[in-house]
């Protein structure tokens, strides 16, 4: 069995690797939680790449039903066809639309199945999938057939904590919480995305970034992906490390802060701080 060791474009910490490999080896779903922007969704793509498997993504919305992942019976088409006298109408199988789970189960090469943001759905959603994820099979009532996974897919589930997931569901998963990367991990992440970046600029940017995240009262703290965007901007605008280092009142707000602060209240908070700082200094 191939092991997941991170990829060229994704830095995996040791605890993440252990969790992924455990889920792959024991063929159980892996539940991933963590702050937004820490790479939960990207992980599935990277695991698929690393293991050389295809990826099937199922993005969950508040209106998504568990049944839609299995199959749907398109009764309206059938009704219309029957009125038009279409011969297809006699075979109910023509109106069964395969869901993502079906696709994943039927695939010859066991794919990686991503169930993205499972907490967006109705509270009953995870419970409705318990048996299907456990046994990797389900029954199609309309055609009286059982769909069974040819090979158990690797299932990665992400959650943003909007709803609690039921215990019975959790018991069947491995769990990993991606915590916000520390400075060293962040340096490795930056190296992956912008190899050979000027180390002085990076160091100042990291300091400014972590200080900003530590600021009490911030409504939305910038994430890894926002930090990477900001670095890109800094490089594009050719802003030097000395600008970031400058701690005078006018420069209290980091340059190009629009990439980091996405909330006008947060920007406002900074402006007020800058004002106080000017007055105090």
């Amino acid at each position, binding site marked *: 069995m191939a092991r997941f060791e991170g990829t060229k474009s994704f830095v995996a910490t040791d605890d993440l690797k252990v*969790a992924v490999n455990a889920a792959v*080896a*024991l063929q159980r779903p892996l539940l991933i939680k963590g702050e937004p922007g820490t790479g939960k969704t990207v992980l599935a793509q990277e695991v698929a790449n690393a293991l050389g498997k295809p990826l099937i993504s199922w993005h969950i919305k508040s209106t998504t039903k568990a049944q839609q992942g299995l199959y749907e019976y398109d009764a309206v088409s059938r009704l219309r066809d029957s009125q038009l006298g279409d011969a297809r109408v006699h075979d109910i199988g023509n109106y069964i639309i395969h869901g993502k789970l079906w696709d994943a189960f039927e695939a010859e090469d066991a794919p990686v199945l991503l169930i993205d943001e499972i907490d967006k759905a109705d509270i009953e959603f995870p419970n409705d999938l318990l048996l299907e994820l456990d046994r990797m099979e389900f029954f199609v009532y309309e055609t009286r057939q059982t769909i069974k996974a040819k090979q158990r897919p690797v299932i990665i589930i992400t959650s943003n*904590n909007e*709803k609690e997931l039921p215990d019975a569901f959790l018991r069947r998963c491995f769990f990993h*919480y991606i915590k916000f990367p520390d*400075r060293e991990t962040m340096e490795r992440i930056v190296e992956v995305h912008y190899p050979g970046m000027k180390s002085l600029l990076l160091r100042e940017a990291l300091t400014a970034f*972590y200080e900003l995240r530590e600021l009490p009262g911030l*409504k939305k703290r910038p994430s890894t992906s926002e930090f990477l965007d900001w670095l890109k901007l800094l490089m594009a605008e050719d802003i030097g490390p000395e600008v970031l280092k400058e701690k005078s009142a006018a420069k209290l707000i980091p340059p190009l802060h629009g990439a980091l602060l996405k909330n006008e209240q947060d920007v406002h908070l900074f402006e007020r*701080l800058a004002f106080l700082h000017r007055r105090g200094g």
Partner: protein
Amino acid sequence: MFIGFFLALRAAGVKASLREFLTLQEAMQAGLGDYDLDTFYFLSRATLVKDEKFIDKFDKVFAECFKGVLASKPEAAPGVEIQPLPEEWLKMLAEKNLTDEEKAEIEAMGGFEKLMETLRNRLEEQKGRHEGGSKWIGTAGTSPFGAHGYNPERVRIGQDKGRQRSAVKVWDRREFRNLAADVEIGTRNMKLALRRLRRFAREGAAEELDLPGTIGSTARNAGFLDLKMVPERHNAVKLLLLLDIGGSMDDHIALSEQLFSAAKGEFKHLVHLYFHNCPYETLWKDARFRSADAMATEDVLHTYDRSWKLIFIGDAAMSPYELLQPGGGISSWNTQSGQDWLRRMILAFPKSVWINPVAEKHWNYTQTTKIIREMMENRMYGLTLEGLDAAMHRLMH
């Protein structure tokens, strides 16, 4: 294997089930544990812990159960069967991570055990400094993630290989402490708490026509009309929020306001009013207590009906006469005591809770807190994730 560890986890309140324990056994048998304590730690965490709020508890139990393994003193961890690995493992670790001078220094300090102990003490000191220290912008970065944070001069561990995270005893650093459910809410887990409010915001069902369902079911029904109804999805909860901004609340006011100003988007019907220490005949729409913003409590009682849910946010701490005596109010002369007003409000809104930002263990030391808690029939909850959860549950049932 590890039955003692499993039982200790359950005793500490980590909700690990037998099924998960068996999964761990299976994983160990499949060779995923790798006979390396770090890997075992990660593996057992991924298997037995299913919510980040339990990771801190898990870390504590792990440290307790396996401190014997690390110090190679088997009798220190009763009930845990210990693998005979620590000696070599530690030596290997030292080989890998320490320079010769450092090794000599370790010997001088009294060997590896001593070093580990020193390291742990240093980490504790470090933690203390962070909490006490200023986190204000512009000061020297005191980020707990900073590399120098775990790099007490002499004990450099795996620095050059960037493996510091896994070098020694991740669990002892307790990085997930902030996520534990019973600590008070900080900005970090404010969002989590809000999401808990949303759960009850989604309830409050009404019935509306389910158009796709009706079409589908009519089609299935060979064209006979079959009406389907679904519960209404949008939020029907009506919330009346009374916030104390009396002097003793200064420490907590930012927290409580932040929490509910963010909740504002969630609730279509949210009214918030302010009071000073104790609600009397007047409440204010604005925290500046201007008379233009005043609203008679009488009017509040008549404007909002029983279907509104009432949440007090306050420390319930004041001088007894402010609560019990007419005229005891500090901002104006009240002809009825605060207790009377409070009683009327509790009666007017059967669904009411009091959320107290002061830690629960201190409640009994304040007379008025005790009185109000009794008046609320124990519906007083701490401003922690657990407290909020319980309060919201109480409001819904």
